[in-house]
């Protein structure tokens, strides 16, 4: 009898090309996602070495990081960004890689379009020159971010030498309280284990609260695995996964579909399989979260306060907290609900999918954005944007005073013109609150889409569990 195996081990073992003794395993890569920022030097490396792209059919490119999100964005004013995008176009043409360019109906954030087009599937290995590649693990894939040298390596060989990571199962058990979302789950996890709490590990998220999440929610959780230091995050594929994937453009069809589902069903972790580490969190302990500092582990409940420096466990932490509070211009002990904000950003590969926009629109419907707040919604892809517009969500946002933008990474990292001004404070559904992340001197608080929407209306953070929903049903 073969030993019980984890989801990760099954995917890993089915992709090992070679295991040369004292070297890392050579892992086959099923899908390589490419964007403009981390690929130019990789393609240039291929050219210099006279190499080709081994499997253009396993490679897909889009533009997301640099592109403006304003309506007229075909001409990009920033010459350096324009050159980078032009370089991607030339590289894709020269090497035969499909590109979903700025005017394609399939353009969007790379981690939104991979799953929504059905390119990302259970059991695959997926890489991208972007740390949030962990997102695709929500489908039961082993998906991880790589650097540009590795991008070149995958382009040339469709493989990567990889040391085998450790396994870490995090189980969230019980029913999530109303108003508590996938974003709060993952922020609560990072708050507990820290930003290096899962370094060297692949996390498998399990437990009834995870299984009850939609695919969009699972993507939010897996997306931020990297913020806990993890190599990847994964969730076993189940009926929710199959129902979500069925009928998508690149999903198998007909008899192939049934055969594929039968294969995917085998992926779940076997009973009794051993993990290197385990952690269980009761769902009932999770509340709507707001980060107060300059890394995603610096997190509090919305009903809580900015911590006192005396609460820091080590001297190094105390110094880091002091520095973070100075940067964030916050005083220890301040109630989170008293923190006023200037900007709201709903978007990013963490929270820009249709379900995120529906949740935010439900909070916004019938309300007005606070007079001191500038708020924007940036859908994750053209398909999400079109779907939202069919459902009338854009109207709800616009009528409330939100800007409704074109798809891209936008203010998550501010590589395009969407940035915070120095000193501005933002409630953001993105994934990183590092110093200067959304613009030099900008102050980022990470929250769920519902919490961001409520903050936009109130001009400060507020507990969405006590929100006054003015319209029961969001119009379709």
């Amino acid at each position, binding site marked *: 009898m073969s030993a019980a195996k984890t989801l990760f081990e099954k995917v890993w073992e089915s992709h090992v090309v070679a295991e040369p003794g*004292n070297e890392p395993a050579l892992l086959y890569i099923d899908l390589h996602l490419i964007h403009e920022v981390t690929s130019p030097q990789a393609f240039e490396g291929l050219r210099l070495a006279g190499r080709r792209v081994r499997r253009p059919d396993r490679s897909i490119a889009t533009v997301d990081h640099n592109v403006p999100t304003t309506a007229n964005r075909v001409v990009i004013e920033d010459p350096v960004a324009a050159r980078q995008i032009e370089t991607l176009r030339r590289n894709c043409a020269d090497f035969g890689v499909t590109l979903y360019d700025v005017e394609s109906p399939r353009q969007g954030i790379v981690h939104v379009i991979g799953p929504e087009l059905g390119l990302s599937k259970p059991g695959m290995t997926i890489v991208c020159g972007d*740390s949030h590649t962990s997102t695709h693990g929500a489908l039961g894939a082993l998906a991880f971010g790589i650097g540009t040298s590795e991008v070149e390596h995958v382009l040339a060989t469709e493989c990567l030498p990889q040391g085998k990571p450790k396994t870490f199962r995090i189980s969230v058990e019980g029913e999530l309280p109303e108003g508590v979302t996938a974003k709060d789950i993952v922020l609560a996890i990072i708050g507990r284990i820290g930003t290096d709490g899962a*370094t060297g590990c692949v996390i498998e998220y399990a437990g009834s609260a995870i299984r009850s999440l939609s695919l969009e929610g699972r993507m939010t959780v897996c997306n931020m695995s990297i913020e806990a230091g993890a190599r990847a995050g994964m969730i076993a594929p189940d009926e929710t996964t199959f129902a979500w994937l069925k009928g998508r453009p690149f999903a198998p069809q007909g008899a*192939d579909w049934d055969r*594929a589902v039968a294969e995917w069903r085998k992926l779940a972790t076997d009973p009794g399989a051993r993990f290197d580490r385990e952690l269980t969190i009761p769902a009932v302990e999770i509340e709507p979260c707001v980060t107060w500092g300059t890394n995603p582990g610096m997190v509090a409940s919305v009903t809580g306060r900015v911590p006192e420096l005396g609460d820091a466990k080590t001297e190094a932490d105390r110094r880091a907290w002091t520095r973070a509070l100075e940067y964030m211009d916050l005083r220890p002990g301040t109630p989170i609900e008293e923190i006023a904000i200037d900007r709201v950003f709903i978007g990013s590969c963490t929270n820009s999918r249709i379900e995120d926009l529906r949740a935010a629109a439900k909070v916004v419907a019938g309300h007005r954005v606070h007079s001191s707040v500038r708020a924007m919604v940036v859908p994750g892809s053209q398909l999400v944007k079109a779907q939202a517009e069919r459902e009338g969500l854009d109207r709800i946002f616009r009528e409330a005073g939100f800007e409704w933008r074109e798809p891209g990474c936008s203010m998550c990292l501010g590589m395009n013109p969407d940035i915070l001004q120095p000193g501005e404070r933002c409630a953001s559904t993105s994934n990183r609150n590092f110093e200067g992340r959304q613009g030099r001197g900008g102050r980022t608080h990470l929250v769920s889409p519902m919490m961001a929407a409520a903050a936009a209306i109130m001009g400060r953070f507020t507990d969405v569990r006590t929100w006054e929903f003015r319209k029961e049903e969001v119009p379709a």
Partner: protein
Amino acid sequence: MEKFRKLTSKVMPLDRVNVDTDQIIPKQFLKRIERTGYGEYLFFDWRQDPGFELNNPRYAGAKILVAARNFGCGSSREHAAWALSDYGFRCVIAPGFADIFHSNAGKNGILLVTLPGEQVQTLLDRAAKTENYSLTVSLEENTIHDGHGFATQFAIDPFRRECLLEGLDDIGLTLRHAAELDKFEKQHDAAFWVAPRAGEQAQA
């Protein structure tokens, strides 16, 4: 890739935990398509503070950086490794590094040494207090010493060590397995349920 054998150099201490790659090289410098020229943007925002270590003349020319826990966390941008290398750093010593940064550093000839927290603290303190404090790092012997009583062995993955010692090109190493790769790929392509374009419909 430049080989790493043995290095004796001044040391720059950076006593901060969780230094993320957004700080090492901010996003506005990621729009360039070149692999070189990032050194002048290293720690760009932090350098605006005259008191920042990189602005301190006593650390000028340091090729060894000593940092606190979880150095290089966050974004996968290899530009962080390019910026460190371009500025002149060849070795970073810390109690722990983020995974992707670890990989990126190795591919650019930067040696990352993981040492226990107490030893790193000793190095941080000595570098901050001693004028021209320098260390000798030998990858051939897996040792670090300062000639003034600090001496230790360090552990490193043997494959990573070999690549750094010899300056090996990863792609070249992988292509030694070309026959196995061809064989694997032929079988693997039959597994359509893990192929990206399994059910490809007409292009939108």
